[in-house]
């Protein structure tokens, strides 16, 4: 009588090796190497998790109670990670847990007891599962249990309970999958079971991934009761003596789950084994085919050429009928699906701020993710062989050059990966969104899909499933993994760019233009590769050519289709400049298009918004000025940074009711010509003086200046003192500011990002890009108009601000700002000049940051009551008016206050000069 133990050992070793699909590995592949690699990945993951979690407990200043709460979250995370790995083990060994035809045909002839085979199989599965759990927890399991332990005994107890619970969670998860299979195997015939088993496998995979990504953070309030990882957290605490009701109820669920599922799965497994092992010998392992006329017709429509059709049908049938390939594809699909759910989580929870029926970042990402996973998944399984010895037929019938085969593979990837996602996405997005954004997103998906497909097929010279695969050749997989991680990290940004592009047609044109160019370039590159003279099909994956130099060839299944083909790079030998040429051409085209776009925009603005005011020649260039009213002194309005004179539209007409009032556009702004040379306060003041002279506007003047214009007005007043009767400085800039004292929330973002030493070259580049239409492209429109400003007037102001020459002057004035401040400081005081200083005092403190709010309040106090007050003290006849309800934009927010202050200064000036009486208000 055969020794059962001996038989058990032999069967155990055989089943263990068959849990890894040997057909996937090339002739020189190594099962042990594959297992070691897989184990290393899990160990690395454990190390990373330990590295991320543990320092918090070692170095944190949190209270013990807070650490305890944090630990519960970490416990749940680590347990759920174990559950995911156990779930993936269940999915990966789905087909291997039950005997297959080989077992029936071979082992059925040998006197081995069924119980020996069952035990050997269970032992093999337990080994895989146990090893995965052990390796996954190799670092975390040896460190995390001790983080909150008090004393050696407590530490040992925590260690023991941790491992017990982690093992229980893994076993529960695995047995759950087994139970599902067992129920299905009992209820259905073997053939029917084969059919639905694949779907059950997919459902299990999706469930595992979805629960992991969608589970809310563990909190000790009311955690959802259906999430298994929470049960085992409860069990862990219950074992450690934490008698809270919450943990008790969760632990009870864990115990019920374990005591139900584990024995049930074992019983069902044994019953299924004995029921089906005989029947499966009579049934094919591969699902019986049905008439696939629809598939053939569809293939004929898609690929008229026989070669393309052959490869497309072969690819489609293999994916449909090979469990291994379907399973791997399902992993990619499950991953994409789960991530899409995770990104859309706020909609599922009802906490989203955006509307689901309008374009939003979450749903944009979902489409891109699913497309990426579909293309990546199908492309990945193309590399995995199926029925390797049968690939001789492709070698024998390789009666064409490689290019048509590559084209056929490309078409297969298109038909099996991208096309289904595009169709599903079109139906979905057109159903939930308005037509235009839905179509725009579809266009982006199509172009992105083309780029992904072409990139993934570059240098791929295999017919799907016909080339062996070396586990060591992870180059592509590492690259894909790196790209995948990068994509995830940038997903929000990428979708944000798309959403932003949807707001304006020109942006969408640029985005699709860039994607289209990338698609064309990728396609050209692939075609170049396909038509390389030395290119050939590849049927065997072997290590690089240096092995071949020793002529250590394996059993020859190689031929003119060389076992290892040298990497072909159509771009080899090309200089760096030649490689950059396509990018340079694309950039030039983009710039040229941008220039045309900018010119068209300016033409349209000129037509829609004709000049307000009239141009006055000041010697080689003209400045625009608008005046109305009659009387003296003339009130002249000066604006702040990058503001046209028309921003005084709420003030100037009111002032014109009782004196002559003029606003003008500084050089380059509004409808004024740009000026060469520097733009310091002196230059601006001199320009204004020339303008007033040339326009025939005699002194005296009362200057009303806003923001940075205050500097220009003060310089004017100092240079042409006899002509200036008074000054009104509305929220004027001052020279007393210490840049280091400005609170962070009030600092210019650009100033924070761009260090001073790079500002001039950066400004030059920015100017160039603005002339190429960048500002107009990024512009979001005029936005809601300020209070009391008509929409059309806001659009006029916005349109003239968008001009490149305005940007040029804005940059110039900004770069010369320090010089202007120096000029202002040199003035020292304004003597007895009539002076009114208007200061906006409305709070600008951020609501959500108390510390910052305090800093801003202190800064504002200094600004209002010291710096602005100092401005008023520049003249012996100066006064300050603090406007509590106005911010910095006084011309819009408090126009009446400006009018009143101007009137007071004008009246005082007239009284002093015996000017004509003014009408009463």
């Amino acid at each position, binding site marked *: 009588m055969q020794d059962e133990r001996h038989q058990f050992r032999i069967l155990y070793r055989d089943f263990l090796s068959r849990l890894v699909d040997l057909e996937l590995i090339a002739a020189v592949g190594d099962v042990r190497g594959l297992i070691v690699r897989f184990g290393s990945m899990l160990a690395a993951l454990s190390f990373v998790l330990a590295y991320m979690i543990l320092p918090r407990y070692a170095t944190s200043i949190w209270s013990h109670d807070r650490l305890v709460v944090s630990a519960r979250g970490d416990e749940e995370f680590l347990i759920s990670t174990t559950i995911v790995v156990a779930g993936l083990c269940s999915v990966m060994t789905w087909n291997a847990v039950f005997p297959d035809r080989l077992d029936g045909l071979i082992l059925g002839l040998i006197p081995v007891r069924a119980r020996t085979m069952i035990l050997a199989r269970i032992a093999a599965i337990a080994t895989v599962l146990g090893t995965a759990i052990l390796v996954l927890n190799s670092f975390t399991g040896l460190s995390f249990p001790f983080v909150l332990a008090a004393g050696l005994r407590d530490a040992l107890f925590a260690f023991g309970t941790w491992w017990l619970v982690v093992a229980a969670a893994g076993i529960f998860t695995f047995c759950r999958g087994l139970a599902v299979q067992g129920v299905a195997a009992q209820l259905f015939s073997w053939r029917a079971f084969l059919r639905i088993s694949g779907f059950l496998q997919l459902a299990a995979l999706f469930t595992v991934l979805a629960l992991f990504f969608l589970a809310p953070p563990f909190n000790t309030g009311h955690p959802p009761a259906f999430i298994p990882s929470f049960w085992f957290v409860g069990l862990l605490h219950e074992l450690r003596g934490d008698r809270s009701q919450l943990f008790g109820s969760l632990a009870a669920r864990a115990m019920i789950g374990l005591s139900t599922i584990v024995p049930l799965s074992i019983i069902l497994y044994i019953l299924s084994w004995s029921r089906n092992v005989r029947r499966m010998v009579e049934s*094919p*392992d*591969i*699902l*019986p*085919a*049905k*008439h*696939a006329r629809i598939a053939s017709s569809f293939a004929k429509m898609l690929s008229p050429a*026989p*070669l393309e*059709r*052959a490869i497309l*049908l*072969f690819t489609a*049938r*293999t994916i449909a*009928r*090979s469990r291994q390939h379907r399973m791997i594809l399902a992993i990619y699909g499950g991953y994409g699906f789960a991530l899409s759910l995770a990104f859309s989580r706020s909609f599922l929870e009802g906490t989203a701020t955006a509307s689901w029926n309008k374009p939003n970042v979450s749903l944009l990402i979902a489409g891109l993710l699913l497309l990426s996973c579909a293309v990546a998944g199908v492309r990945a399984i193309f590399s995995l062989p*199926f*029925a390797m*010895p*049968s690939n*001789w*037929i*492709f*070698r*024998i*019938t*390789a*009666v*064409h*050059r490689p290019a048509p085969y590559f084209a056929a593979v490309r078409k297969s990837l298109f038909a099996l990966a991208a096309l289904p996602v595009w169709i599903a996405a079109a139906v979905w997005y057109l159903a939930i969104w308005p037509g235009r954004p839905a179509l725009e997103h579809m266009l982006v998906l199509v172009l992105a899909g083309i780029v992904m497909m072409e990139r993934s097929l570059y240098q791929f010279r295999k017919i799907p499933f016909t080339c062996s695969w070396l586990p060591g050749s992870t180059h592509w997989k590492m690259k894909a993994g790196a790209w995948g991680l990068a994509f995830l990290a940038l997903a929000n940004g990428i979708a944000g760019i798309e959403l932003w592009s949807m707001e304006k047609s020109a942006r969408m044109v640029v985005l699709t233009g860039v994607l289209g160019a990338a698609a064309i370039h990728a396609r050209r590159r692939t075609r170049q590769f396909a038509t390389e003279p030395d290119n050939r099909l590849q049927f065997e994956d072997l290590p690089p050519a240096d092995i071949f130099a020793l002529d*250590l*060839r394996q*059993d*020859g*299944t*190689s*031929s*003119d289709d060389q076992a290892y083909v040298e990497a072909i790079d159509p771009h080899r030998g090309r200089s760096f400049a030649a490689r950059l040429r396509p990018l340079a051409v694309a950039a030039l085209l983009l710039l040229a298009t941008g220039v045309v776009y900018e010119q068209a925009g300016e033409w349209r603005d000129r037509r829609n918004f004709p000049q307000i005011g009239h141009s006055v020649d000041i010697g080689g260039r003209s400045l625009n000025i608008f005046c109305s009213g009659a009387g003296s002194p003339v009130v002249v309005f000066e604006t702040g940074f990058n503001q046209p004179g028309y921003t005084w539209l709420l003030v100037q007409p009111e002032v014109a009711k009782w004196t002559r009032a003029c606003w003008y556009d500084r050089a380059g702004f509004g409808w004024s010509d740009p000026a060469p040379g520097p733009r310091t306060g002196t230059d601006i003041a001199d320009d204004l003086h020339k303008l007033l002279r040339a326009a025939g506007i005699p002194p005296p003047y009362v200057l009303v200046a806003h923001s940075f214009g205050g500097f220009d007005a003060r310089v004017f007043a100092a240079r042409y003192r006899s002509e200036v009767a008074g000054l009104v400085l509305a929220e004027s800039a001052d020279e007393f500011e210490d840049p280091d004292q400005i609170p962070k929330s009030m600092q210019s973002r650009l100033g924070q990002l761009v260090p001073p030493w790079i500002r001039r070259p950066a400004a030059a580049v920015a100017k160039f890009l603005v002339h190429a239409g960048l500002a107009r492209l990024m512009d979001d429109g005029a936005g809601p108009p300020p209070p009391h400003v008509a929409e059309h007037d806001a659009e006029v102001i916005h349109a003239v601000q968008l001009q490149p020459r305005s940007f040029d002057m804005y940059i110039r004035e900004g770069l010369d700002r320090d010089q202007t401040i120096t000029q202002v400081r040199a003035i020292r005081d304004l003597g007895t000049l009539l002076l009114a200083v208007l200061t906006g005092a409305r709070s600008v403190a951020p609501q959500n940051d108390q510390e910052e709010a305090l800093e801003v309040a202190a800064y504002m106090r200094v600004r209002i009551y010291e710096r602005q007050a100092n401005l008023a003290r520049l003249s012996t006849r100066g006064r300050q008016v603090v406007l509590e309800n106005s911010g910095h934009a006084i011309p819009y927010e408090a126009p009446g206050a400006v009018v009143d202050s101007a009137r007071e200064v004008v009246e005082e000036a007239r009284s002093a000069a015996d000017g004509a009486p003014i009408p009463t208000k």
Partner: protein
Amino acid sequence: MLELRDVTKLYAGIPVVSEVSFVAQTGEVTGYLGPNGSGKSTTLKMIAGLIEPSEGQILFNGLPIGRNRIAHKQRLGYVPEEPHLYPHLTGAEYLEMVGQLRGIPGGQLVHKTTGFLRLLGLHADRDVPISSYSKGMRQKILLAAALLHNPDLVLLDEPFSGLDVNSALVLRGLIRELAARGKVVLFSSHELDTVERVSSRIVILHKGRVVANDSIQQLRALMSLPTLEDIFSQLAVEQNTEAVTQEMVELIES
């Protein structure tokens, strides 16, 4: 005409096929014989272009087959020894795929595949996965796949393996007919009776070397042996088969 000139194949320095030279004429059936491991299948694979010879030349119609591999494959029909077929495809799907890979136009392909399946008795099982086929059925599929495109050079490696009597008779007649229609037919088999009936010329391989290369009549006359089996036993069989048989029986009963 197929010609091999001093064709050698080395694996890790060990010659599996050593300086094999022979000619298979158009219109003739050439039998290629030898014990297990003598290098027959390796030779046929080299002629099929699946593996490269280490030395020597293989010419078809005077031109080295390596000069234009695509043209060579277009003319070649090959039935391998091992019936490796894609198990997930049905018989019809497999033949359809092969025909499409060879560029046979659609209508013609349908006509041919239907005809072959019917004539080989596979029509009823045409939509059943090949994984369910018996050995003989797979062999028939291999045969049909090799002949779909009307090849000029037909290589058959153990084509009778697994075939029933009826199919074997059909195949025998087919081989003769193919040769009569101007094709080069080279086939290897262990069924010496069949080889004797069908072939005009015999090449016998032993330990990678050609030990006989002549017509059957000439060989009989040269060696004064009546049958091919006798000739084969003389040239290629090393064992004392009687002694081996006795020893095996003793081993079984031990």
